[in-house]
């Protein structure tokens, strides 16, 4: 048997907060939502705000043909990695929701494909100080045909625009859900996720 080693070296690196390292044994399954957007838009902040564990980070290696568009990765023998932060939230007692922060750049699209498989949908974070930085992430979502909602992460220093202006700037479809949130605030972040899931239900019932 595997013994519970008290000298577990990684236990100190990831102190178990509420809920602990392991899931409750009642948990019967997992679902996932991607949180996408450019660097610095607040993905990890939002995930940390919502997560019952400290956000974890893992590096996905990209070795596939999809790196073709990346001039930095030319030789084929080199691989590039992309850091993905994620967290989890146990809901309803027997279901755990994983939130994977996914960097938006076009060249990371290959790393998205695995993650997007089986995902309920995605929350696309945007920063009004640099709306254009979110274009790649939105393009990727459309390429993958993953339903999503857009959440404007409101930075204190960020300019405020009308929703219509943001829609126009991001070229959003009329039925794409657009909300604002403060990624540092738990209630606000969960409300953004709720808006996303409501939208997903709408999409699912429309298409069935």
């Amino acid at each position, binding site marked *: 048997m595997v013994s519970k080693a008290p000298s577990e070296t990684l236990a100190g690196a990831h102190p178990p907060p509420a809920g602990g390292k392991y899931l409750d044994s009642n948990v019967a399954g997992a679902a996932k939502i991607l949180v996408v957007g450019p660097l610095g838009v607040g993905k990890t902040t939002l995930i940390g705000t919502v997560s019952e564990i400290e956000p974890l980070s893992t590096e996905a290696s990209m070795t596939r043909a999809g790196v073709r568009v990346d001039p930095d990765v030319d030789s084929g023998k080199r691989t590039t990695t992309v850091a993905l932060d994620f967290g989890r939230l146990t809901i*309803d007692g027997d279901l755990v929701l994983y939130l994977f922060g996914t960097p938006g750049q076009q060249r990371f699209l290959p790393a998205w494909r695995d993650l997007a498989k089986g995902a309920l949908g995605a929350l696309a974070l945007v920063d009004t100080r640099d709306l254009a930085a979110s274009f790649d992430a939105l393009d990727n979502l459309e390429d993958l045909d993953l339903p999503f909602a857009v959440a404007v992460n409101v930075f204190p220093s960020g300019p405020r625009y009308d929703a219509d202006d943001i829609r126009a700037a991001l070229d959003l479809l009329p039925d794409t859900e657009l909300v604002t949130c403060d990624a540092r605030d738990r209630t606000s972040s969960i409300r953004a996720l709720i808006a996303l899931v409501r939208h997903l239900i709408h999409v699912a019932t429309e298409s069935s």
Partner: protein
Amino acid sequence: MTAERPEAPRASAIRPYVITRGRTESEGEPLSWESLVMTADAAFPAALQPEHLAILKQCEGLISVAEVAAHLGQPPSVVQVLLSDLLRWGLIVTRPPIPPAERADVTMLRKVLHGLESSL
């Protein structure tokens, strides 16, 4: 400890497929990042590789593939392969992600919605 897990009976060559609920193409279809894994109540071979052993130690309770990878500081792609070995050898059990195939499962989405609203 053979008879304690009715959902994962021992001593059968096809048992890994039972555990994965019929997902026989596991060679080409790795566990997803959010798949939940846990050690089975099985004694394991003393000659197990350290990499496999390290993973088993992370799986003493129910935990996702991504978390195992993060705790070990290994890329999930590596952990997925090693977990597939352990699964084939009957040393771990999995709970498949929900929804298994189609994302447009309204029942699941409503459950997530309810759960999120309850956690406000």
